[in-house]
């Protein structure tokens, strides 16, 4: 008999346990999720496509397999949705753009969708995003802005805007996003959810529309650390279809997730990461640091240059990717994206090559830092979610364009592919803030362990917004 749990608001681990133990059918879970999406999403605008028929068919198939005695998998019956730059069979992969929605429907799902479904999860749709992922705001001129469930007048952050909004609104317990310069960590902060940006190369990007090959990552977002770990473990593994996918074997994190802090050496990032933001951004870091008894401060060297180099590589590689479309259909781009891409196309090549050479130096310098520390804490964003439509904000007394500066603290970290667990902090009754729990390359296990400790202490949490 099915219990009277509200499965539309349950976390992934609870759903998988319920389906696995026969306490609920996958169809019941999926019907509840679809009903909640239909009721709430019009106010949030997180979804661009709902794959209801496919989801119900998958649920029935899973229930049939379970009834026949086949183990249903670690994510059994878990509804999930993906940023619409990840291929979903039967849908054009629009990548937030007007132009791409004219493409032929994807012939098969992206690799990470296939891996999640192999673990029993069920795709229920594709999610809104900033055009071609060149965005930190969550605004989209083609599909409408995503709205922050914790404050509908405020930005969700981007470019994985629907991925953050869907989690915060409790529409699904698991989403996938992409992060080139902060696009998982920024909406995680603004929408008050957990996000994992793995090490560059850890999770395959095959079957997703690219932005900046040098910097693109895919990763999960969720309302609990355990759900991040469940999804992350299901998605690891080799993939020759992504040229930068690691040859390292999968390193599951779930077995050690609750091993605590042990003798981890944890420090707060000073210098660049302690200025140029609102006081609340740094207060959130201090709340996390106090909970972890982390008093040490380290300086990540040349972070401002790292951000500048990431900016250059992004502009140049993004422009090269889109040059033909800029030639033939420039009026069909979001103007804010088009103008940046055109400028990027005009960058002299030595500037970009220099940025790539600097990247290698910086990687070495930060690696030296990790010889002496295991975890570094830094703000995710310089402020809480700004009001939608705001073009400039004042940080440290300086007026700056919002769109280009929300990622000021995320860019120097993804620039060299470090793994980050983004954790949500609620300082008061206002909107949330985010803190980056940054670990050494390939140590997602460490970042998630620390995030799990913080979650158990109650220092970080990802509540569902009370909408209806």
């Amino acid at each position, binding site marked *: 008999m099915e219990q009277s749990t509200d499965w539309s608001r349950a976390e992934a681990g609870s759903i998988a346990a319920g389906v696995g133990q026969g306490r609920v059918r996958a169809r019941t879970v999926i019907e509840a999720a679809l009903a909640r999406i239909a009721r709430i999403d019009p106010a949030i605008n997180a979804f661009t496509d709902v794959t209801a028929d496919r989801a119900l068919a998958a649920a029935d198939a899973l229930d049939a397999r379970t009834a026949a005695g086949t183990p249903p998998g670690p994510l059994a019956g878990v509804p999930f949705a993906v940023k619409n730059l990840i291929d979903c069979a039967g849908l054009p992969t629009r990548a937030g753009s007007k132009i791409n929605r004219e493409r032929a429907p994807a012939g098969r799902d992206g690799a990470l969708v296939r891996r999640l479904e192999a673990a029993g999860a069920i795709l229920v749709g594709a999610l809104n995003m900033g055009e071609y992922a060149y965005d930190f705001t969550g605004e989209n001129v083609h599909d409408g802005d995503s709205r922050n469930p914790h404050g509908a007048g405020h930005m969700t952050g981007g470019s994985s805007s629907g991925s953050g909004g869907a989690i915060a609104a409790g529409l699904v317990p698991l989403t996938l996003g992409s992060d080139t310069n902060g696009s998982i960590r920024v909406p995680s902060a603004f929408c008050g959810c957990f996000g994992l940006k793995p090490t560059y190369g850890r999770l395959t990007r095959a079957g997703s529309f690219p932005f900046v090959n040098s910097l693109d990552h895919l990763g999960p977002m969720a309302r609990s650390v355990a759900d991040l770990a469940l999804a992350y473990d299901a998605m690891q593994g080799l993939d020759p279809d992504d040229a930068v996918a690691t040859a390292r074997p999968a390193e599951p994190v779930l077995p050690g997730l609750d091993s605590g802090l042990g003798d981890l050496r944890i420090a707060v990032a000073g210098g660049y990461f302690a200025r140029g933001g609102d006081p609340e951004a740094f207060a959130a870091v201090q709340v996390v640091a106090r909970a972890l008894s982390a008093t040490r401060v380290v300086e990540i060297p040349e972070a401002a240059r790292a951000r500048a180099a990431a900016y250059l590589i992004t502009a140049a590689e993004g422009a090269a990717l889109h040059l033909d479309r800029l030639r033939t259909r420039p009026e069909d781009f979001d103007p804010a994206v088009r103008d940046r891409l055109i400028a990027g196309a005009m960058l002299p090549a030595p500037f970009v090559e220099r940025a790539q050479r600097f990247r290698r*130096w910086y*990687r070495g310098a930060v690696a030296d830092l990790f010889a002496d520390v295991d975890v570094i804490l830094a703000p995710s964003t310089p402020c809480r979610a700004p009001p939608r439509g705001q073009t400039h904000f004042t940080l440290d007394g300086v007026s700056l364009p919002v769109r280009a500066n929300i990622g000021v603290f995320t860019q120097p970290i993804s620039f060299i592919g470090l793994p980050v667990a983004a954790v949500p902090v609620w300082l008061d009754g206002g909107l949330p803030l985010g803190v980056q729990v940054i670990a050494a390359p390939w140590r997602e296990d460490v970042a998630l362990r620390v995030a799990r400790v913080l979650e158990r202490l109650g220092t970080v949490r990802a509540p569902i917004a009370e909408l209806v």
Partner: protein
Amino acid sequence: MTTRDAPLPDLDAFASASAALLGLSLDPAWVAPVTANLRVLAAAADLVGGFPLPDEAEAAPVFEA
């Protein structure tokens, strides 16, 4: 590479000439936002270029974290 000493050139003219080289049609209304972005990119390039790197510091052929 060292940081630029001279002021930026006429970026409107640079954008127009570059657009022609790239095969891009640059609507006059787009010139101001494009040059604004070019100024930001030039500042970023100056910042990166101001950091001394030896000639042997090569970009990774395939970057690995």
